């Protein structure tokens, strides 16, 4: 009886014990784990061949691109910038890419080059290219992907530093307007402030800043901005010009009204 109980309790203990692991080891003491030199060597060989091929293709494209370019296009290729008036080869040379990086579609006289994949985005010296459009084989429009959206260049003026600054200011103002519409006045003011650096002397921008400051109950700063707005408009000239600034009539009237009120409250 006692022996039976003992056996039973031993069996119960064995049942409670965790299951043993029976797995064959894949590495044991004394085995060898070689380094990755083999992988590196094979990749190295392949990389050298690919790089040489890519460089040869790129060099021949550049030579072809520079063979018959006008001075302004040649200078743009040397700077690594896509310029209006370039042909397809010249765009490839300016972006130091090969046709593999692009998806090129043609429709009649128009053609468009877009990055081949969303993960591999070609750049030129000015930024990341979103699209290059051609008309009769020549670049008619270049689009860049910027922090504030897509910047389009379809005029020689747009490609200059001033043109680029103006385009960026435009997008910042648009962003500021969206924040203002959502009631996020701090962010709206931030965007307007940034835009005012890029587009100095824009009276409408001053008016926007003044309005936001006024809404934020910052009367002294708002007053300064309203005055600046009115000053910039050079009201005497406007009266002489007549309708030239007619679209700003409401803004002018509002600014004048606010100046009077704020001055009165300030006293």
């Amino acid at each position: 009886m006692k022996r039976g109980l003992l056996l039973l309790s031993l069996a119960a203990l064995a049942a409670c014990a965790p299951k043993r692991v029976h797995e064959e080891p894949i590495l044991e003491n004394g085995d060898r784990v070689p380094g990755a030199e083999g992988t590196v060597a094979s990749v190295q060989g392949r990389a050298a061949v690919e790089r040489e091929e890519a460089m040869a293709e790129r060099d021949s494209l550049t030579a072809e691109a520079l063979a018959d370019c006008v001075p302004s296009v040649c200078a743009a290729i040397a700077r690594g910038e896509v310029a209006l008036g370039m042909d397809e080869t010249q765009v490839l040379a300016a972006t130091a890419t090969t046709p593999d990086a692009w998806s090129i579609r043609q429709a009649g006289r128009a053609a468009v080059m877009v990055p081949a994949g969303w993960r591999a985005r070609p750049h030129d010296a000015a930024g990341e290219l979103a699209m290059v459009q051609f008309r009769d084989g020549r670049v008619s429009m270049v689009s860049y992907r910027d922090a504030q959206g897509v910047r389009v260049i379809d005029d020689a003026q747009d490609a200059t530093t001033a043109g680029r600054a103006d385009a960026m200011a435009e997008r910042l103002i648009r962003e500021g307007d969206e924040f203002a519409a959502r009631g996020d006045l701090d962010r709206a003011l931030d965007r307007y402030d940034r835009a005012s650096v890029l587009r100095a002397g824009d009276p409408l921008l001053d008016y926007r800043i003044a309005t936001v400051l006024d809404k934020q109950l910052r009367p002294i700063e708002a007053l300064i901005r309203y005055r600046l707005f009115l000053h910039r408009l050079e009201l005497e000239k406007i009266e002489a010009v007549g309708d030239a600034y007619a679209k700003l009539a409401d803004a002018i009237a509002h600014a004048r009204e606010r100046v009077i009120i704020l001055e009165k409250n300030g006293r």
Partner: protein
Amino acid sequence: MFIASNFALSRPIRLALIAGLAAAPLACGGKRVSRIEPTAVTDLSGRWNDTDSRLVANALIEQSLTGAWVSRYAAAHGGEPPRVIVGTFENRTMEHIPVGTFVRDLERAFVNSGMVRVVASSDERQEVRAERQDQQEHARADTRAQLGQELGAKYMLQGVLQAIEDEEGRERVIFYQVDATLVDLETNEKVWVGQHEIKKYIERSRFGW
């Protein structure tokens, strides 16, 4: 008579003397040091060791260099290799694990393969910048390192090492997982994710020390 009585030692003292004499040759044995092949697997405690570091390095090198991210970048940049900066590899295990060993292996493979360009990390470049600044004042003009010529990295390599342990009686299982990620510095996009897992089964002998 006097001498004889002195040598008539009691039984416990005699036993102790015998045990002492028996242990003497062991004490003379001392330490044994030998150089062994660095690639040899030498598991002593079951904790993280050089073999684990090598296994992780090999796996990450294989995965990263054969990944599509390198060729994609090269295709979009006229065959130029991507530029990578090594960021932080976190050790989230309870063990002290020098992650630098396999990170350096990975860095070495990047550089030697020629497929990836590696730029100095934030810690490393401080010394280089200090030297460059010093050259501006003291070095001859034609040998001076120019300012503003640093290469900006396109991707940052980051990683994390985690472990899960299970123990019962004389048995223990440790599972290590190493995750490495390459993040686009402009877009925060993860362009490559590598992973290696190691599972160890440790069984202590019943009569061991």
